[in-house]
């Protein structure tokens, strides 16, 4: 039994050391799939979430102080968050089901506040999804 227990502990230590706990998300978003290979930075980000209903939320990577903002306040919110952390990477986290218009509003707001470089958060597109689409 000793080798099995050894292996068990090895795996235990591996998973313990690799686990990072994700803070509970107040806004749940189904990300669109893409074949992008770049990872979102783990720290130093400003995340603008657009949920399925087209509501806007702004937060940092901890998602702890998520605040809802309206379209009108979006520009001001981006400016104040960027002022708090000028080096942060702006990530737009849009639900795949949401109307493009809502995301376009976010991108317009980013352009208006001179945030000309930002990321769109996506999920890895699995080949399975592709074949399913082809069947359609």
């Amino acid at each position, binding site marked *: 039994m000793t080798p099995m227990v050894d292996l068990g502990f090895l795996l*235990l230590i591996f998973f313990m050391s*690799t686990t990072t706990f994700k803070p509970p998300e107040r806004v749940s978003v189904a990300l*669109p799939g893409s074949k992008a290979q770049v990872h979102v930075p783990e720290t130093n980000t400003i995340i603008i979430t657009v949920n399925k209903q087209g509501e806007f939320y702004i937060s940092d990577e901890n998602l702890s102080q998520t605040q809802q903002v309206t379209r009108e306040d979006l520009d001001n919110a981006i400016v104040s968050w960027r002022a708090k952390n000028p080096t942060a990477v702006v990530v737009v986290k849009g639900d*795949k089901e949401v109307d*493009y218009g809502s995301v376009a509003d976010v991108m317009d707001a980013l352009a208006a506040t001179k945030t000309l470089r930002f990321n769109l958060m996506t999920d890895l597109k699995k080949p399975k999804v592709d074949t399913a689409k082809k069947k359609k």
Partner: protein
Amino acid sequence: MSVDVAAAPQKGKKSALGLRKRKRVGIRIDMTPMVDLAFLLLIFFMVTTVFRRPLAMEVNVPEPGAKVEVPVSNVMTAYVMADGTIEYDVGQRGLAEASWEELRDILVLELDYNPDLIVLVKVDRSARYERMVDVLDALDEARISRFSVIPMTEADKAVIGAQ
């Protein structure tokens, strides 16, 4: 002390140093609960671990108001309609409908044909956001770096509707 021991005559089981060899008591620790706990934790961490970090597409947008003049023959316009269909028009040659699967191949072909190709992506505001990501993804895969995402105007919709 060692002197005493050495002086003492040999009797019974005694080592060279004269210490009596104690009978070893086999210590058995029941490891079952510990192993149980270890496996419990193992299962817990295995279940809660997420290896995948979300991916990102980097987007650089031009300054608002920046204008670049480009010859119309170099421009390919891709229209994403509200119902999720995609139509494209290369150098005003006329609209053609494309399917999402062949979009990447079309882009590769057109880029091959005209390396100076610039793609304008016009997405209807009521189209799904996923569609725009799909277009960007196809552009990225076709290695087209010169594109711009612009809003679809009513005039565009009228043009498409007329054809």
